[in-house]
Structures are given as structure tokens and as C-alpha cells.
């Protein structure tokens, strides 16, 4: 425990800015993964235990696309669209067969794919750590905000994630497709009786969730190292985020992700050995006091 470092940081603006931005980017990446998880759960009532693999695929796709085209925008698109396609195939081909079965079956199918996906990545890209490197467009001098160092890429990352949150939130609340998705989450039988292809909706939601995780992976690729199995810790953290925020709530995912991000970045100063523990402790407190999460409606 090093409380002096923590209080020292909280009182200097430079350190405060640096830690807050690093907390924000952890939080934003987590949000993109967690919002897909929560969306899939909200509509399909399954927890995609292989969601971390989509994050991993997004990162690898982005790295490869960047190596071939040299365009960062294309790399991000490749990460998001590539994983969305995998998500669609995965849902239609496999997950849709275990709806309505008990949790054991769903977990097993996902578990099988975690093993398969990790090995596929190992086969194609090799088992060693990879690094995409910072795109040339962002290899510029960092900004100084109130004395704190902020790389411009961090701002882009936060901006993209916020835009995704906004589009998703508005899209679900205001558009016709959003309305259909919400209806399907509520009563799929009724929706399909009205002549809407619920299978397509399910596949689409899964693809959207997978694509968001892939986008997170693509955004993370320049700042994190790539390795098979990199998605698993992200999966656990984003699950903690959804538990804190409340399953099925997009706002909850955003708030939960930011809280976890800040806990991680400031916790690593004050409690270097117990950073992960802090996260779990926070989850336990929320679970005990509000079992349905901060923004959840149903009781878990």
C-alpha cells in the first residue's frame, strides 16, 4: 500500500491529468467490449462468454490490415467488420442452437470457441507477443493539459468510443430498428408474429456486439501488446463492468466501465499489489447492496 503516492498524485494537476486520461482509455475500451456483452444479453438472454475472443480478433485484424494498407481508418474498419461477420456466423451457426437450454450448454459452446479461437490466432499469427505500433498520423508530440502528458491518440480513442456510445444509445432509442430490437428483447414471440424475422435481429445484434468488441480491439492494438488469449482478462473485466452497471443497460455499462477504468489507474498508484482486488471489492459491494447493478432494472 502506498497512500502517499495516491494523495500526492491527487494533489498535483499533472499527475491527476495523466492518471485520469489513462483511466479513461481503459474505461472506454472496456465500455466498447462491455456494451456488446450487455446488448447481447439484453436481447438474446445469453452471456457471450467468448466475447473476449472478438476483442482479440479485432486487434489482430487491425494489425494485419494496417500492415497491408498503411491506413489506420481501414485498420479500424477491418477490426470492426471482420469481427461482426464472425459474430454473425457464430450466432447463426452455433449459439442459436442452444437458446432455451440451460446455462451449462451455453457456457460449453462458448468455452469451446474460446479454445478454438485462441488456437486459430496462435496458428495464423504465432504464439509470440505482437505489436502494431502507433500509426504514423499519431506520431506527433503529446499535448500538455494542465501539466499532464496526453498523447493525441488517447483523445481519438476516447472520441471514437463516446461517438459509438452516442450512436448506439440514440439508435436504440429513436430509430425503427432500435424499436424492433427493444421489442425483440421484451417479447420475441410477439415480434416474430408481427412478421419480423427475429433470427435476423438476433444475428444482427450479435454481429453488432461482436463488431463493437472488435472495434475496441482495433483501437487497443496500437497501445497494447497482442497475444493469443489477450481477450480473456478483458472479458472478465467487462463482465464486472456489466455486473456493476446492470445487465442490459447501456448507460450502466458506460458508468461501470469508467469507474473500473479510474479504479484501475488510481488504484495502481495507491495499492500496486491490490489493483485487481479493488475492482472485485467494488463489484462485491455493488452486488451486495444493489444485486441488479447500479442501472439494472431486473433483480439478478
Amino acid at each position, binding site marked *: 500500500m502506498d497512500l502517499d503516492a495516491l494523495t500526492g498524485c491527487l494533489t498535483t494537476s499533472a499527475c491527476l491529468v495523466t492518471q485520469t486520461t489513462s483511466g479513461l482509455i481503459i474505461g472506454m475500451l472496456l465500455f466498447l467490449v462491455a456494451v456488446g456483452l450487455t446488448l447481447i444479453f439484453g436481447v438474446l438472454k445469453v452471456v457471450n462468454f467468448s466475447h473476449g475472443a472478438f476483442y482479440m480478433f479485432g486487434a489482430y485484424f487491425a494489425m494485419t490490415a494496417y500492415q497491408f494498407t498503411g491506413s489506420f481508418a481501414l485498420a479500424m474498419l477491418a477490426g470492426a467488420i471482420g469481427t461482426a461477420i464472425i459474430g454473425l456466423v457464430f450466432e447463426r451457426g452455433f449459439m442459436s442452437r442452444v437458446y432455451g437450454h440451460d446455462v*451449462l450448454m451455453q457456457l*460449453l459452446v462458448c*468455452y*469451446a470457441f474460446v*479454445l478454438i479461437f485462441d*488456437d486459430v490466432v496462435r*496458428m495464423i499469427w504465432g504464439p509470440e507477443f505482437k505489436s502494431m505500433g502507433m500509426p504514423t498520423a499519431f506520431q506527433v508530440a503529446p499535448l500538455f493539459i494542465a501539466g499532464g502528458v496526453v498523447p493525441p491518440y488517447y483523445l481519438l480513442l476516447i472520441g471514437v468510443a463516446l461517438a459509438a456510445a452516442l450512436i448506439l444509445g440514440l439508435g436504440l432509442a429513436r430509430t425503427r430498428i432500435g424499436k424492433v430490437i427493444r421489442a425483440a428483447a421484451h417479447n420475441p414471440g410477439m415480434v416474430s408474429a408481427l412478421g419480423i424475422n427475429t433470427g435476423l435481429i438476433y444475428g444482427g445484434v450479435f454481429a453488432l456486439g461482436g463488431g463493437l468488441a472488435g472495434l475496441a480491439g482495433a483501437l487497443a492494438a496500437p497501445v497494447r501488446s497482442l497475444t493469443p488469449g489477450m481477450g480473456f482478462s478483458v472479458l*472478465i473485466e467487462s*463482465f464486472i463492468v456489466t455486473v456493476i452497471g446492470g445487465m442490459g443497460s447501456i448507460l450502466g455499462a458506460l458508468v461501470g466501465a469508467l469507474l473500473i477504468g479510474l479504479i484501475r489507474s488510481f488504484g495502481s498508484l495507491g495499492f500496486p499489489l491490490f489493483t*485487481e482486488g479493488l475492482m472485485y471489492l467494488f463489484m462485491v459491494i455493488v452486488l451486495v447492496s444493489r444485486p441488479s447493478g447500479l442501472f439494472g432494472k431486473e433483480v439478478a
Partner: protein
Amino acid sequence: MSEVRAEQGTALDVSRSEPKSTRYRDALIALAAFIILALLPALTSSKFLLDFVIRCAAYGLFATSLNLLVGYTGLTSFGHGMFFGLGAYGFGLTMQKTGVPVPVAFVATLLITLVVAAVIGAICVRLKEIYFAFVTLAFQMLIHSTILSWVSFTGGDQGLRGGIPRPPFLGIDLSNHLHLYIFSCALLVIGLLLMRQIAQSPFGYTLRMIRDNATRASFVGIDVYRAKLTIFVLAALFASVGGMIMALFVSGAYPEFAYWTISGEGIFINMLGGVTTFLGPMVGTVILLILNDTVTRVTEYHGIVLGIVILFFAIGLRKGLMDFVFEWVAQRRDAARERAP
């Protein structure tokens, strides 16, 4: 799963009508199994086979205890492996740091597991299905990351090295391979017998009722929370014994023992063998270990092979092997009953 559970109802009637005889029968089967296992070293000198049985004992106890949760209570724990790891580390650390006799360390590890399981269980068992699965998994990751980051105490990612001291006690010398083998077999048989007693006891039937209809169970006056917590802790204790066997076998403890893949394998073993019979997980353990050993010898990508096998069972068959045997026996019995009016 509903049709399988319906059939379990018929099995329930049968075992209820003759509880005494099944109890003696279980003890006799356990004794016979132990004698056969104990005679095995006299028949074969293959160290590989004996090692295989020891590993089966470790994983078998772990998987069968998981079945108490998954199959009997309907609690799909995805973090049960944490107690396996806790057993291995608890035992290894107690032996390394304090040098107490083996039985004392054994009991101490069980006590540690009891406390940890009671705390984690108290938080987890009030949660529903998927929440329960993931929060147990989250706790597993907490324990794993604690082991990794607390290098001065646990050795971090290197694991507990330098071997676990195994001083002889009561004429049993666990550094002797044969003694270790017999000791593991004894623990396996006793553990299985105890778990069988739990499963066949009135408490075991309470658990089945909670699995099938928790609301009804609480209406007839059962404290569902308490029953779930009790079985969570009991299952953790047996998993911990499995971990201790593993620690004794490899004379160390490694972070992999507490990693989530152990829990995943446990779930898969239960699926493979089937959760409707008591010995299903044991059968699953033997199959998975053989499968693991063969596949790792053939290819380095054993995740793909294992994943396809899991998909085949989960989507293709939707049942474990012992479920098929169980159904076949039940069909035969029904047919025989029809023929003899």
C-alpha cells in the same frame, strides 16, 4: 435437459424404496474399487498407469464435487477450479512454511478452504444462473491474479518451487511413489463415498428439489440460501482435496491450478460423463485425461481439437456418455417390467 430430469424422477423413487441396501451397496462397491486399485501396482509395473490413476483421483474428486453443484443443485459454477488451486497452494504453502506433519497441513488446508468458500459462497449463491457462473469465475480470476502478483509468498508465475516436504507419518511415506499412489486412491474412494452419502441423504434430495423448483422448495420451508451455501462449501472442500493430491503428485503448486481453464475442464468433464449419474464425472475425467494426453502428443493446437469435441457433445449429442448408459439401463428395466406383468 427436461426429459433427462424427468427420468431422474423415476430413479428417485427406486432409490427411496430401498435406501438401506443402497447404502451398504455403495460401501461395498467403494471397498471393492479400492481393493482393485490397490492391487494394480502388483499387476503392472507401469509408472505411467499409476501416475494416470493419481491424476484421475485429483481431477475426479474435483469434477465429482462440481457435479454436486451443477448436476444436483443446478448451480453452474464456472469458478470451481479456484478451490482446486486453493487446495494445492494451501497445502504446499503450509508444508513449506511451517513444516507441520501432513495430516495437520491437510486439515489446515481444509479449514482455509472452508473459510474462503464460506465468504465467496455467501456472496455468490444468492445470484441467479449466469450471474452465479460469472461471479464465481471472477473470484477465480481474483485468486489467480493474487497468486501471480504476490510473488514473495506464492512464487508468482514460477509457482511453488523447491518441492513440498513430505515427512512420513503413521508409517506412510508420501515421497515413496507406491505410498503416494495408495494414499491418493484411498482419498479418492473415501471422497467419492462421502459425496455419494451427501447425494443420497435427505439433504441431497433437498438439493434436487431446489434445482427443479426453488420457489416450491422455499414454500415447503426449506432455507434455499442456506442449503445452497452448505453444498457450495462442501463441494469446495472436496475440490480442495483434489488440489492437495495434485500438489503432492507434482510436489509443487503452479498458477495453472487456479486458472479458469481448470474450471472449464471441470464443466466439460461433467458434460462429457453426464450429470445425471453419480459416477458420470469420474468417467468424464478418465476420458478427458486420455484425450488430453493423446492430443497433446499429436498436435500443439490441442485447443482446437478439444473445442471440436466439446461442440460435438454440447450441440451434437446434448448428453454425456453416462446419460446414454443410464437411459439404456432404464429402458431395459422398463421393458423387463412390461414383459413380467
